[in-house]
């Protein structure tokens, strides 16, 4: 075996970790989907199911020096970055034990201790944030890399385009991950994105742009590892476009009259978890029993998270003004 192969090959632990994260995201989202329908969860939720390979394939390449910024569809990015699942569930239920003490909800889950700058209710809100953290990492010389996830809708926002320009001009260790799931809310990206691919826009900003099958963990991981290694060594920003489909509507309750049978086909033929399981079994890297054990472990984790969230107290009136002002 050569050095290059050793550098790239994922260990058994890494493969198990990747599968555990993707399975956790899937089960978390499917459970939130079911629980939201009961009316117990306040506010809006936007589910990430179907897109797991993107968050996990990218975030597995990150370490403690790195930061990510997410979107309104942020649960998957939080889980992939290691935010506590029980605290996340409590946050979505609006409980005091939540990641943001129950005052942020689904769209504002943040955990700076994990380098997670936050889900973000503002479309295109993440890219400017990571220009800041990437600049800080560059000035301090930490070797840290910052990643902004945004959707096809976010790719059309001025903030995203300005951030890509700035990142290129300043040669920042910034990775722009365009998660093109085909629809900005209900508007098809084939209509709303004027370039034929979001990745094509990279050329205009003087950075590499690549298209990746967002259902394929291994394809995502490989492209992200190269882009992140490049950014860490001073090579500057990269734009990666993931192409895939979200399994649920834009938000829970979306009637989805704007799309046809693509979800059924994606679930049957393209699903990232099925493909991952198939491939690692084929190569004998993991056994079915290993994956089944993870499935059972994750199911128990999600059950416990929901139970704990339901039992947790709501914020009180006295909590209203905490975490609002910062003295500096």
């Amino acid at each position, binding site marked *: *075996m*050569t*050095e*290059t*192969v050793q550098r*790239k*090959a*994922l260990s058994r632990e890494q493969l198990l970790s990747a599968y555990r994260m993707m399975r956790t995201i899937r089960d978390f989202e499917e459970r939130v989907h079911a629980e939201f329908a009961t009316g117990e969860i306040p506010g809006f939720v936007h589910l990430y199911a179907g897109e797991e390979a993107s968050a996990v394939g990218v975030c597995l390449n990150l370490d403690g020096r790195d930061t990510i910024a997410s979107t309104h569809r942020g649960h998957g990015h939080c889980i992939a970055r290691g935010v506590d699942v029980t605290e996340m569930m409590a946050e979505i239920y609006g409980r005091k034990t939540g990641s943001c003490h129950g005052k942020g909800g689904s769209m504002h889950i943040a955990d700076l201790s994990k380098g997670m700058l936050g889900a973000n209710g503002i479309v295109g809100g993440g890219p400017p944030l990571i220009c800041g953290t990437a600049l800080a990492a560059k000035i301090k010389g930490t070797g840290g890399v910052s990643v902004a996830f945004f959707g096809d809708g976010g790719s059309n926002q001025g903030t995203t385009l300005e951030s890509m320009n700035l990142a290129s001009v300043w040669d920042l260790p910034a990775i722009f991950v365009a998660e093109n799931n085909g629809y900005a809310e209900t508007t098809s990206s*084939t209509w709303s994105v004027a370039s*034929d*691919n979001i*990745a*094509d826009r*990279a*050329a205009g900003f003087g950075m*590499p*742009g*690549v*298209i*990746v099958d967002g259902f*394929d963990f*291994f*394809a995502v*991981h*490989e*492209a992200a590892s*190269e*882009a992140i290694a*490049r950014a860490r060594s001073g090579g500057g920003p*990269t734009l990666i476009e993931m*192409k895939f489909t979200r399994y649920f509507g834009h938000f829970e309750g979306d009637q989805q009259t704007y799309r046809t049978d693509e979800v059924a*086909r994606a679930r049957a033929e393209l699903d990232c978890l099925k493909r991952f399981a198939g*491939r690692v079994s*084929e*190569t*004998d*890297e993991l056994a079915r029993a290993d994956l089944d054990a993870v499935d059972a472990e994750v199911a128990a984790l999600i059950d416990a998270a929901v139970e704990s969230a339901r039992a947790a107290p709501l914020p009180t009136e006295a909590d209203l003004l905490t975490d609002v002002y910062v003295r500096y």
Partner: protein
Amino acid sequence: MGDAIVGIVANPLSGRDIRRLVTQASVFPTAEKANMIQRMLTAFGAVGVQRVLLSTDLGGISAAVLRAIGRRPAAAGSGPDGRWPEVEFLDGQPIRQTAQDTVDAVRRMVAADARVIVCLGGDGTARVTASAVGDVPMLALSTGTNNVFPAVREATIAGLAAGLVAAGQVDQQAATTRAKLLEVRVGDRAETALVDVAVSTERHVGARAVWDPATVTQLFCAFAQPDAIGLSSILGQLCPVGRHEPHGVTARIAPDADCQVLAPIAPGLVIPVGVREVARMQPGAEHRVAAGAGVIAVDGERELTFSPGQDVTVRLRADGPRCVDVPAVLAASARLGLLRRRC
């Protein structure tokens, strides 16, 4: 004899893979793919092609051609110089955004009696087209990254050649050549390659492209030209084999080998590659792959994984796709005066 029909299949995703990131590979714009099709339509119209069957896609190529057709003034259809053939868009079937789209489109073209099928893409697109084209002549034009099989050629000229063949103005046998083919078998799975088969120690198909020769242990080439880009360039500098020579060439790739070839294995990537045990491949002879587990790449793209204990064999075949020989067609046209008027 039926209508003079040409099929065009254009891959919207060619020229977009990880090599934009790990090398300085070019981005081939969608607009240019659509322009190439329009230039071909003009050439087809000039030499009497009646119908064109065009693949549809979500990448914007077929949409741009449709818009161009809509913008053409009505008068353009009547004059002999500006006439475009009737264009039929092959829609009505699901677009999966995978290689299957190319296979489906090519099969429909074959079933509709296309006399020539033009494909726009890189080596990967040509390979997929070849797998479905049967005995219909194909013409591969480069709009991809590593282009050994498809020609980098002006679309107007390619269009004239494809059109002359489709319209029956030149002898089809003299105007086409038979390409070689590599057949690789892993258990009961089989793939074909037009240029090269590489054995890689990578465990997964991943980002598909092979751009790191340190992962390659064995290489099989149907042909290896000294001026090629990609993996076949390694043997092209060591033991060149022409497109139309009957044999192929194979070698072991090893970083510590005495013999090192400075090879352009991807655009912007010229690196030393260690080579040993170079040998000829005779047509039909079965070559067994000596590796425990890994991935087989066909024409530069990882495609098949294999595990210890699985038999992997590679065979050179002489019965590859029939390809339009553009210089030969246009030379015949000059001899026969096909593009001359009153002279």
